[in-house]
């Protein structure tokens, strides 16, 4: 990780000079950013995605799925049992009127959601379906459902072990439950895990929470305007993010926070309309999803390919087990940590089971994936790495093409949505990254400014680099967070179970009641 950081920064400094000198060399600049970036991060990516010996199954995917399954069983299918209660909590049925004006469950949930709903749902799903075929959707939904239990575990701990400062502000997240929770259980190494986690979180903030977003936002813009250097998009994005996180111009962030939910709803509605118009094909699409889930329907890597892609993209999209949500959810006002854990169950559900599935269905139904009419199997591209698409696009461009089959004007709406989603995700991740940064280096204006400047700089790198290199690095960092976080969750899950049992017992006995309105 450290090697990457220095490598990336050195590359960056070296590259910033020629750009200033000659803007017309922008295309070669993109290429050079990409080469240096891929070169300096490749070793880490390889380590994280190393296959299990003798298979082509990355160990990290197994790690996530096994964890989510263990949490699901250990907490007695909490995602099913507490689903109704989660909705009741979000509605504010159990909110104490005397706490009015504090952060509500709804606000904690939506803030966390605006960090996860974004390009993972649009571009990530397109990548999954593009490589793994419609069958990837099945595994993605399954991973989303199981991931609800991981999210429950980490968010309960996030609230339980958050730091509350004298001025009433709070800081929470895996760093805090690793140190405090391990100490409480008398297990050594909590502090060490917390430091490693914080380092990876900074990487994740710069990768998935930043470069991937900038990259895909640029891809979407060029889809409409025609090709131009990513440098330009990067600089503009960096300037706006700079204005918000360094300049403290809150109005931009507030506008985004209000427009993003609206865009999310618009996106789902548009997908629904396309699905309704093609209602006769929905049965066929689900058939493809189920059949593809177990046979692969000829995609690269067959059924294992579909499974890996589905699980990978679900984890990247809903971040269950990654630990980022524990930071966002900790701000809620509640006396019962379990309540926020229960509310956080809804996050993978909305993000993955609802929104990602919509995208996957639209892509499948739209016919942008090329099928061999004779065999009924997908046709692979020349390199044999992904399914050939109607216009050769991938990522967000593929989603855009799929939606365009329903509404020709949709790419414009999607472009706006992608830019806003990218922006709100960047703002959220700049916060997660900053929390990790201050955990490592302490709080202070100058220290925070250093991180914010690095964050803005990586937006430019992300917009200029190519998708492959960026997506690999983003995945690697996010999954590296999950390695550390889930290790900690295994040690701390008995605490969550105790909290959970106590809470639901009191709920059952009537000690915890709804507040009348």
């Amino acid at each position, binding site marked *: 990780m450290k090697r990457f950081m220095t490598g990336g920064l050195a590359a960056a400094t070296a590259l910033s000079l020629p750009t200033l000198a000659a803007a017309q060399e922008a295309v070669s600049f993109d290429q050079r950013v990409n080469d240096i970036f891929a070169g300096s991060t490749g070793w880490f990516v390889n380590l994280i995605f190393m296959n299990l010996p003798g298979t082509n199954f990355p160990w990290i995917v197994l790690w996530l799925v096994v964890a989510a399954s263990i949490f699901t069983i250990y907490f007695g299918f909490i995602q099913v049992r507490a689903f109704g209660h989660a909705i009741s909590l979000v509605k504010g049925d159990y909110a104490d*009127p005397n706490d009015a004006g504090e952060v509500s469950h709804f606000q904690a949930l939506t803030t966390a959601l605006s960090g996860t709903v974004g390009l993972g749902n649009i571009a990530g799903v397109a990548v999954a379906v593009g490589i793994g075929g419609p069958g990837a959707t099945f595994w993605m939904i399954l991973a989303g459902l199981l991931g609800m239990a991981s999210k429950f575990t980490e968010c309960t701990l996030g609230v339980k072990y958050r730091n509350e400062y004298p*001025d009433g502000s709070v800081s929470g997240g895996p760093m805090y439950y690793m140190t405090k929770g391990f100490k409480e259980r008398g297990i050594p190494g909590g502090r060490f895990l917390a430091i490693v986690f914080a380092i990876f979180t900074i990487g994740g903030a710069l990768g998935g929470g930043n470069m991937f977003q900038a990259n895909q936002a640029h891809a979407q813009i060029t889809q409409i305007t025609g090709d131009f250097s990513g440098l330009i998009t990067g600089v503009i994005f960096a300037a706006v993010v700079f204005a918000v996180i360094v300049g403290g111009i809150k109005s931009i962030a507030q506008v985004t926070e209000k427009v993003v939910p609206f865009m999310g709803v618009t996106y789902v509605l548009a997908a629904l309309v396309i699905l309704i118009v093609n209602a006769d094909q929905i049965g066929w699409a689900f058939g493809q999803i189920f059949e593809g889930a177990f046979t692969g329907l000829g995609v690269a890597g067959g059924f294992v390919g579909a499974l890996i892609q589905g699980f990978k993209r679900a984890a990247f999209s809903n971040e269950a087990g990654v630990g980022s949500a524990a930071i966002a959810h900790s701000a809620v006002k509640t006396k019962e940590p379990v309540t926020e854990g229960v509310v956080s169950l809804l996050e993978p559900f909305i993000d993955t089971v609802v929104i990602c599935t919509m995208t996957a269905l639209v892509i499948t139904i739209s016919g942008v994936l090329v099928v061999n009419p004779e065999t009924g199997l997908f046709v692979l591209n020349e390199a044999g790495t992904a399914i050939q698409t109607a216009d050769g696009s991938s990522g967000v461009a593929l989603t855009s093409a799929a939606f365009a089959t329903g509404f020709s004007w949709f790419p414009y709406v999607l472009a706006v949505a992608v830019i806003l989603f990218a922006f709100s995700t960047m703002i959220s991740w700049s916060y997660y990254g900053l929390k990790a940064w201050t955990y490592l280096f302490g709080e202070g204006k100058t220290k925070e400014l250093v991180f914010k400047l690095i964050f803005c700089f990586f937006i430019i790198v992300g917009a200029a680099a190519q998708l492959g290199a960026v997506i690999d690095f983003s995945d690697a960092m996010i999954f590296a967070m999950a390695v550390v976080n889930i290790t900690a969750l295994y040690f701390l899950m008995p605490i969550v179970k105790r909290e959970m049992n106590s809470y639901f017992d009191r709920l059952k006995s009537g000690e915890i009641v709804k507040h009348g309105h």
Partner: protein
Amino acid sequence: MTKTTIVVGLDGSEAGARALDFAKSQAKQIGECAIAICYVIEWSPFSFQTPEENEQRHKRREEELQLAHERVMDPAVTKTKADGFDVLAVVRHGDAADILDAVAKQHGAAQIVVGRVGARGLKERVFGGVTGRLAATASVPLTIIP
């Protein structure tokens, strides 16, 4: 509560002050009557916030409450008490119409008195002002002071 209670909504405006004056004159006529003065800080648990806003929320809330007390509530309460009335002060976050009605119910109030707030902007036109919504939903008699 055996005593009659009148709930008054204050918003720091002229109309709010007139509402309090009206409540006082009513209370004087009734005799044994308490005045519950309410100040509502408009807030919704269903708004969207950034992570930083969430982190700072508790502090902001304390500041909002303190400001409400300093600027509006405390002077009104002191003055009303000095006039010899039994006073109850409520400062709360939420929807003004909901909270005024909830306070009225809680204290078994005889009526709610509010100042009329002139319609402002599109939002008021679409969703109706506080007074309009209160008139439509209040569970006790409502007096609107122009």
